[in-house]
């Protein structure tokens, strides 16, 4: 019987029919998706912190508004994704708990500090840029709610990338200090953004199964190469350079060759030893703990109202 269900499931996946929450699915598929979607949601939420760091110091009112709107978009992405994960039978509170206890991960890129205003541009251009390449294939991922959430997310991410690039372009045409700020940010964000695609394919254990389930469509190395090829061209428009002496167009491969990635650093940051791991997690935990009484009050109030007016059925979700 189990076998049969599994065949039906895989047939659907092979025919590109979306798997919906009520459909039968292998337990491992469910678990893998919960891990992947919640990790993605956490990345959106933690990702608000390094950029939020510059909201109060944005150098013009226009930039301030753009940045607030961007960080707010990321909160929205978190919401869509938490909702998608909830359809698999896990609650948002459980997912938060996994984040706060360190059981669930988020993208390591957000464990680097934003030191200057140019970092806001570099994040938009490189980090959102890398995120888009990772996420576009997910718009066709086999799990329906995830795929649909990603369609909305991707639209906004490409907007973020354009804004980030435009911010850097303005700096690149500005004063000497602005140009230096721009180059410095690119220097610091380039390598970490390459690591966003994950370890090399031969060191990436889950790839084969995920490909079969169509929750992954391209390998880490394929996507990374695509990113490098794209950015290596765009950086010319900025009149800046990428901090890699080995970056060179390879006519035979029709791709850019590039230098060695420092995987030691990558695993250190994943393992919790990045420059801001503790700070980011502490900020999330503090927001959650400081908000406990607010959530309790909202729930208590909603219950009172629901008991006074049962037909309306208020829940804390009306908040």
């Amino acid at each position, binding site marked *: 019987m189990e076998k049969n269900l599994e065949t039906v499931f895989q047939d659907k996946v092979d025919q590109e029919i979306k798997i919906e929450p009520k459909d039968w699915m292998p337990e491992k598929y469910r678990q893998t998706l919960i891990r992947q979607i919640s990790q993605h949601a956490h990345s959106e939420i933690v990702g608000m912190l390094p950029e939020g760091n510059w909201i109060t110091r*944005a150098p013009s*009112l226009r930039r301030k508004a753009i940045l607030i709107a961007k960080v707010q978009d990321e909160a929205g992405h978190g919401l869509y994704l938490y909702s998608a994960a909830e359809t698999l039978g896990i609650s948002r509170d459980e997912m938060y708990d996994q984040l706060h206890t360190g059981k669930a991960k988020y993208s390591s890129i957000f464990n680097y500090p934003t030191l200057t205003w140019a970092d806001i541009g570099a994040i938009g251009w490189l980090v959102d840029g890398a995120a888009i390449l990772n996420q576009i294939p997910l718009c066709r991922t086999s799990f329906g709610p995830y795929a649909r959430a990603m369609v909305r997310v991707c639209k906004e991410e490409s907007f973020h990338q354009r804004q980030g690039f435009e911010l850097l372009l303005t700096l690149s045409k500005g004063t000497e200090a602005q140009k230096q700020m721009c180059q410095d940010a690119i220097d610091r964000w380039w390598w970490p953004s390459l690591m966003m695609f994950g370890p090399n394919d031969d060191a990436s254990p889950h790839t084969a199964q995920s490909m079969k389930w169509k929750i992954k469509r391209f390998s880490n190395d394929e996507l990374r190469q695509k990113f490098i090829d794209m950015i290596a061209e765009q950086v010319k428009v900025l009149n800046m350079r990428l901090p890699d002496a080995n970056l060179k167009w390879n006519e035979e491969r029709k791709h850019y060759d590039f230098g060695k990635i420092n995987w030691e650093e990558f695993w250190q940051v994943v393992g919790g030893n990045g420059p801001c791991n503790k700070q980011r997690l502490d900020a999330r935990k503090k*927001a959650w703990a400081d*908000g406990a009484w607010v959530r*309790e009050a909202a729930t208590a*109030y909603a219950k009172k109202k629901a008991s006074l007016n049962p037909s309306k059925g208020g829940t804390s979700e009306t908040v």
Partner: protein
Amino acid sequence: MNKSINISTDQLINYLLHLADNSLIMGHRNSEWCGHGPILEQDIAISNIALDLIGQARNFYQYAAIPIKQSTNQPINLTTEDSLAYLRDTREYKNCLLVEQPNGDWAQTILKQFFFSTYQYYLYQQLQNNADDQLKAIAAKALKEVTYHVRWSSEWVIRLGDGTDESKKRLLRAFDELWMFTGELFEPASYELNMSTDFILMKEEWNKKVCSVFEEATIDVPVEKKWHQSGGKTGNHSEHLGLLLAEMQFMQRAYPNSEW
């Protein structure tokens, strides 16, 4: 411009700066919550309000820049929304004291928003009928946004007041922190006179709204008779504003004459 009462250019400029400063400082404070809110949906809501208020500030600054340019004789005048926001110091800022107060906890933030948005609501309601076309248009657009801010913040005041003992206690503490800054809202500075706003009516309406929301929130507070702080409208601020500006204006001060 077609004004029934003749107001001086100086007065108009100061008035516009006052309106802009109020919105900017309040919006800036709200934006401090971004990424740190108690509930993800509310993080988005308060950032939205921040965006609305910063948008209003930009409209007022842009409008103020026009008469400022006309009234100076320099051949090139570099007044922009950004020079007005980023290159004036504490004594030149004309926001009321309420908006520059620190956010405190969620109760304090909510109550500050409720007091301020309710004030803005009745003010803009009058300004949307102002003789100055530009002012009228900005107020009419902003009124739609502020209507939502009032609804959102009053719902939260009610929820906190009638939620748990803890939330009620915090709301009452917020009241003690903030009430003394509400009187200034209705004490017109010289540049607010002759702007065809009826402060007595505004105060009445504001009081009525506040009392009715407090009643629904089941909190009993002495809304009459209490000493009120004022001075913000004429540049006599609390110490908080200087620190806020130091942070907000950092880039423009550290890297002058740059395009961003």
